[in-house]
């Protein structure tokens, strides 16, 4: 018996609906159809009236979730594709993000963003929005990279009283499998050392955790380098304690992400390590992201657009040779 990443998301929603009467699901095609990625398959039948198809209206979907959360509910909104959340940007950052600070009343919504690229998806079904939402005060932004985190972090996201942007990676949906879901999981906000090492740290999140581990395995096999991989798990707030402790052990930082290079999570990590941990560094902190173009359609272009184990190894060799 194995469970995939998308199964874990479905199971978490099943448990939430079962255990918490405040929870309901709202999104496009999520009811009888079970969602574009089947993350809600069977839930409409199991929980009649609590898994609701929405019109194609991302702005209204988030607005309605905000209203429902103010009335005591714990809505989970599926965005179908993270890219489409740009239509709901106003409700997310201005309505949900400002509400607690302005009024003292929090907005406990969970927004599921099917994020990141898969081969052949093209520019409008591949984007990573975590940096955009992290920029705005008031939001929690999580980026689970494992099957267990996908499960536990969704349960926790719904418990958090503030808006949580839950960035699930589409590439991991069926590619990532586990034998079972482990334990209770680390809390939201805590990073994890996925792979210990001593010569350099790769600080990353979401699907790139797996590419980083492959690159680290390859470097160890080929050259004996021991690379530590830190999975941020949550990009807002950043667990700088864990990041700085890793850099203290290794002296070198590669901040890795699938999102566009300008600004963003890797920029934040690199600048904070430079500012707060300059004395720990033996080399300038390095960033590695996708290319600064829209995400291309053709699988060959796509594969070269985002960091791969090969290109991560190149970046790491540069960092290690400084």
């Amino acid at each position, binding site marked *: 018996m194995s469970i995939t990443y998308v199964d874990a998301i479905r199971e978490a929603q099943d448990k939430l609906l079962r255990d918490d009467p405040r929870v309901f699901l709202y999104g496009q095609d999520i009811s009888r159809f079970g969602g574009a990625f089947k993350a809600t398959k069977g839930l409409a039948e199991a929980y009649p009236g609590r898994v609701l198809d929405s019109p194609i209206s991302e702005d209204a979907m988030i607005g309605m979730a905000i209203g429902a959360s*103010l009335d005591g509910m714990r809505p989970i909104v599926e965005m179908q594709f993270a890219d489409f959340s740009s239509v709901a940007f106003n409700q997310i950052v201005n309505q949900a993000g400002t509400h607690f600070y302005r009024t003292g009343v929090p907005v406990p919504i969970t927004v599921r963003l099917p994020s990141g690229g898969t081969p052949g998806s093209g520019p409008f079904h591949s984007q990573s929005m975590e940096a955009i939402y992290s920029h705005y005060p008031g939001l929690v932004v999580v980026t689970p990279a494992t099957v267990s985190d996908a499960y536990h972090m969704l349960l926790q996201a719904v418990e958090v009283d503030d808006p949580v942007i839950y960035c699930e990676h589409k590439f991991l949906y069926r590619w990532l499998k586990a034998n079972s879901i482990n334990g209770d999981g680390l809390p939201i*906000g805590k990073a994890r050392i996925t792979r210990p090492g001593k010569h350099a740290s790769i600080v990353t999140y979401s699907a790139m955790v797996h590419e980083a581990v492959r690159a680290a395995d390859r470097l160890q096999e080929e050259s004996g380098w021991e690379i530590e991989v830190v999975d941020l798990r949550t990009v807002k707030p950043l667990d700088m304690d864990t990041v700085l402790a890793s850099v203290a052990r290794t002296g070198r930082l590669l901040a890795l992400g699938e999102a566009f290079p300008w600004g963003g999570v890797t920029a934040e990590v690199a600048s904070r390590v430079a500012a707060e941990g300059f004395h720990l560094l033996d080399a300038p902190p390095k960033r590695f992201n996708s290319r600064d173009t829209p995400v291309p359609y053709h699988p060959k272009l796509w594969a070269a657009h985002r960091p791969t184990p090969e290109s991560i190894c190149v970046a790491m060799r540069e960092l290690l040779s400084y």
Partner: protein
Amino acid sequence: MPADADATPVRDEREHARKVFRAMLEARQLETKLSSMYKAGKIVGGVYLGKGQEAVSASLGGGLNWGTDVFAPLIRDQAGRSAFGEDMLDCTRTYLGSSLGPMHGRDGNIHRGRPKEGLLAMISHLGASVPVVAGVLLSRRLQGKLDGVVGATCIGDGGTSTGAFHEGLNAAAVERLPMVVVVANNQFAYSTPNDRQFACGDLLDRAVGYGVEGSSVDGTDFLDCLRVIGGAIDRARSGAGPQMVVARLLRLSGHGEHDDASYVPDKLRAGGLGRDCMQVAAAQMIETGYATEGEISDWQTEVEDAVQLAIATAQQEPPPDPWKERWDARSTKLSMVTEA
């Protein structure tokens, strides 16, 4: 009127009109005072008057029940806020920057609200409240608490051009939620006239497109507003689905007190839309025998005193203190993590 409207308790028309009219008086007096304080440099940020729109706004707010119904007022809805039951101090404290106000100095003027009590806090992005009201109503339905509840919001002619307005009204219509959207067509979106704002013949056409029941009202006519907006509230409450009311009127002030509204043609001001709903309402109150001239004059004095007291109270209260501010945009402390 639908057949089941008979089930709605008949309001005491006289008492209701007196309550709504008094809220209009309160809003006008309060805003006149705030405007003069703004011009004297005593208020930070803008002051936005509902002058000329009080009859529409108060008819909506006054038809709702504080504590059970939901109201998302917009810029020009001081009268609706007063009629709904907002404490006047919430207004003066917010405008004057008292730390004791509902927004604690963190947000200003018209953005204030008490979401837990059903008075939603607006953001400046027009149309954004429409889906939020719908969401509260959807939540009530899921909790089995929707019966007899109404959610209401206001918007201007310009706001009906936004995607949020369309998406929110469409979603509310799909769910057949008891929502009332009142459109104050005051002829100008800031300075942009209707003919540069929309190309449909009448804003009521929008209601048809959404599958929403629509009605029109002369926004300068107090009794007409009470009847038409009250009717829409009653229909929504009794299960007839979302309602949209379009009120024809003219904004009798600038967009804000920083704006002299020189773009409004004199001819429009001199016409029927330029009537002051407050004067019309006073005359109608007397004509119908709902109030005497003496009563109205007494109310005016009472309201003036209340406004003076609210302003004096807020003025004496401490402003927010940057050193004591929690500077926390989230309510949740994420344990085991040093937040960065």
